[in-house]
């Protein structure tokens, strides 16, 4: 394949890269030491990204100008989601009230605010009421108060109704069904009115550090790197944004947060985060099926009692007869043959669900991972120069399946605690705001999360779902979560898969093209796209692990858990074996692969800004 001379150089470079990677302890990752593999002639070369193959060792980059333009702000916010925008708005509100100037810059990888936002969503307006009490006059897109709340346990053909008693976490009285992407877009407009500098289309790709190890700010992504990792004519370095304090609001499983956990050892006193994947579609239904304000949740079929997950179906009231529906599967599932996408598609055929969708038209599709760890998995939230906000550290109330209100509140608290110091800068050291963790513990966020802390872990028992529901009934509904113990999760999601030979493949029905659909037409509906000529942003620490481990032991689960068809095992050109093909352009930035890869070999990094899904009001 490659001329021997060039390959030898490549081998040496890769060995140096492997040695440099701090976390690459082969034993811990379950990866066999593979340094010798690089010298063999049939080792695959898949990854070309500079985070795996550093450019300062790469002769193609010799002589390329790597200086970056830098600018100074008071606060930089990474991520224009509910947490990031609430923080930005709050910072400006406080500055206005105290008659001082504060420069707030928000960077966002999506091409427009809201384009990467995906959620159910039933919003609890508590945080919004605190942030912008006159949201109604300002035209916030909260048009659908919840009028009906239905909960069911599904069997293959039937439905067991469960009464939605007040006090149960799933009760939605007083909440609004929203299209979160539209709410985020509206928050963006409010932020701009207050003078926040919003920069959609620019991804934060690197964390910058002062000499003393504190966070100095971020650098946006470089552009103009070819698929093979070499510089193109259009190559330009990203820009550095320096700030007193940087708020990291990347959402669930952010890639910079992953680096920060390691760098500052923020997870030493908490449990690993556990996750779920949520897939969602938006449908236009026939007017006679439309019940605006109706909220439906279900558990049970098609998942077995030991796989956490369930569905949602919300009827919006925004003019057109729109329904937002979706399916959540806990990523601690053990059967590598499980495909969350296909579970979602077959759930739609259930006799309780299908009638709503019959005769309707699907207009949107997307997916995103969400946190399920609750208080047990919250890391240390502050470090010199930075604060973690929103779903990145993870404040989702799992039984309520709501995280937006707590994310917004966390952003607001971060703003309130860093505001007095922002503007009084020390140019050589990042600001540490440890008060933030205290404020959070004293707020309703912690109270709420503490009360529900044992519900999700209670599913890890022989009776699975049913045991969990009984636990919730007794300890949450009756005793309000006041039991003195805290249950643990069962470890990393990526460790939960059983080898394929111990599991049975699942027979999924073929999509019928009316209610259920194939993967690729679904991905097309997400509007996702990336500049084709750039290195794949799904990077592998070791290019040989997918075939040697993931495929050999687990039958390639990434082909099934990716909701966008990024990973495919295809025969090699000579037909002798298989190879992993990464269709990076399809990626919808859900982060599931980074979470669930049993070898923890996949490292999602941010692609060129503006790439990714083009969700419209998801």
């Amino acid at each position: 394949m490659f001329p021997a001379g060039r390959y030898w150089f490549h081998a040496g470079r890769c060995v140096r890269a492997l040695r440099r990677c701090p976390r690459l302890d082969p034993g811990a990752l379950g990866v066999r030491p593979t340094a010798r593999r690089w010298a063999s002639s049939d080792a695959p070369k898949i990854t070309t990204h500079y985070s795996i193959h550093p450019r300062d060792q790469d002769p193609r980059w010799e002589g390329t100008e790597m200086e970056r333009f830098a600018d100074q702000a008071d606060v930089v916010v990474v991520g224009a989601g509910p947490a990031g925008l609430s923080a930005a708005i709050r910072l400006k509100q406080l500055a206005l009230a105290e008659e001082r100037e504060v420069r707030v810059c928000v960077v966002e990888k999506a091409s427009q605010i809201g384009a990467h936002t995906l959620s159910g969503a039933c919003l609890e307006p508590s945080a919004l009421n605190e942030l912008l009490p006159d949201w109604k006059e300002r035209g916030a897109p909260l048009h659908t108060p919840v009028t009906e709340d239905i909960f069911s346990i599904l069997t293959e053909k039937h439905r067991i109704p469960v009464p939605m008693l007040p006090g149960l976490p799933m009760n939605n009285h007083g909440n609004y069904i929203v299209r979160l992407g539209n709410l985020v877009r509206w928050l963006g407009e409010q932020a701009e009115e207050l003078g926040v500098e919003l920069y959609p289309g620019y991804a934060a790709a690197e964390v910058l550090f002062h000499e003393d190890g504190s966070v100095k700010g971020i650098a946006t992504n470089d552009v103009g790197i070819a698929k093979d990792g070499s510089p193109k004519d259009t190559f330009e370095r990203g820009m550095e944004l320096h700030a007193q304090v940087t708020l990291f609001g990347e959402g669930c499983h952010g890639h910079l947060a992953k680096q920060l956990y390691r760098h500052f050892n923020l997870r030493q006193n908490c449990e690993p985060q556990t996750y779920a994947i949520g897939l969602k579609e938006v449908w236009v239904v026939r007017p006679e099926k439309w019940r605006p304000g109706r909220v439906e949740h279900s558990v049970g079929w098609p998942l077995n009692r030991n796989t956490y997950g369930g569905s949602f179906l919300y009827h919006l009231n925004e003019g057109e007869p729109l329904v937002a529906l979706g399916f959540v599967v806990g990523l601690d599932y053990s059967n590598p043959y499980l495909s969350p996408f296909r579970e979602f598609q077959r759930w739609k055929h259930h006799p309780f669900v299908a009638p709503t969708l019959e005769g309707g038209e699907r207009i949107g599709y997307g997916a995103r991972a969400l946190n399920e760890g609750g208080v047990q998995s919250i890391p240390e939230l502050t470090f010199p120069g930075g604060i973690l906000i929103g779903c990145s550290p993870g404040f989702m109330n799992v039984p309520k399946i709501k995280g937006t209100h707590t994310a917004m509140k966390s952003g607001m608290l971060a703003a309130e605690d860093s505001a007095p110091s922002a503007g009084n800068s020390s140019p050589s050291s990042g600001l540490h705001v440890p008060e933030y963790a205290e404020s959070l513990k004293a707020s309703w966020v912690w109270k709420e999360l503490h009360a529900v802390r044992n519900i999700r872990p209670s599913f890890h028992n022989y009776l699975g779902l049913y045991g969990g529901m009984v636990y919730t009934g007794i300890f949450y509904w009756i005793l309000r979560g006041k039991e003195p113990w805290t249950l643990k999760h069962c470890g990393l999601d990526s460790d939960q898969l059983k080898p394929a030979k111990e599991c049975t493949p699942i027979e999924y029905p073929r999509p019928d093209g009316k209610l259920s659909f194939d993967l690729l037409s679904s991905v097309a509906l997400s509007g996702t796209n990336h500049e084709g000529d750039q290195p794949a942003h799904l990077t592998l620490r070791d290019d040989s692990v997918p075939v040697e481990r993931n495929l050999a032991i687990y039958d390639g689960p990434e082909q099934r858990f990716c909701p966008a068809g990024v990973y495919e095992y295809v025969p090699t050109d000579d037909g002798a074996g298989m190879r992993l093909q990464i269709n990076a352009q399809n990626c919808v930035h859900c982060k599931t692969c980074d979470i669930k890869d049993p070898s923890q070999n996949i490292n999602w990094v941010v692609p060129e800004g503006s790439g990714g899904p083009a969700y419209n009001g998801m």
Partner: protein
Amino acid sequence: MSGRVLVGVKRVIDYAVKIRVKPDHSGVVTEGVKHSMNPFCEIAVEEAVKMKEKKLIKEVVAVSCGPQQVQETIRTALAMGADRGIHVEVSAKEYESLGPLQVSKILAALAKKEEAQLIILGKQAIDGDCNQTGQMTAALLDWPQGTFASEVTLEAGHVKVVREIDGGLETIKINTPAVLTADLRLNTPRYATLPNIMKAKKKKIANVKPADLGVELASKLQVLRVDEPPQREAGVKVESVDDLVGKLKEAGRI
């Protein structure tokens, strides 16, 4: 010669987004949908900026017609290197019926007002696919046109344009002032990087109304109905030639 180049940029629905027809069939859904600069307009901006960098021209002016949101597109052009922008304000209602003829009249009026030496446009917009604005603008101004340009060489008093045509490549020499329309292979547009976006916020965008330019926006065309393309029917396999002939007769084809 003024050394000023006018570049037209259009804000269109991003090419990767799935288009949806409005329920009332009056058009396509644009609310909240991802938009970006028309890819051929990006190439046009890049060409103009390249000419300025080679000191062949002095100023690049980016123009766009439409409602408030087109200012984002003008800002992108400014970030790529245009010096100033002109936003021709057209209300959202009027924008629905704005077609190549009205845009050409606007561009022609602006070209005279700004004493432009060159107008560079994209060859067509990916939403309308009309491929008419460049040609109409040249006709209204009575200027020569170099359309489907894949290579442009600006010299004193004239322009050499290599055009992509059905049979291959055609090289023409036209006098300036002239209208050029950019084809795909003219250049690779640069990225609008963040420092340039920040600088672009300080560049001026002037607001102009079509009436100020003496242009009537009323369209003589009325869109009656917009529909999705018909769904592709599944094919049918036939066993023999007789079968095939029978099926063709059934379908009334023979």
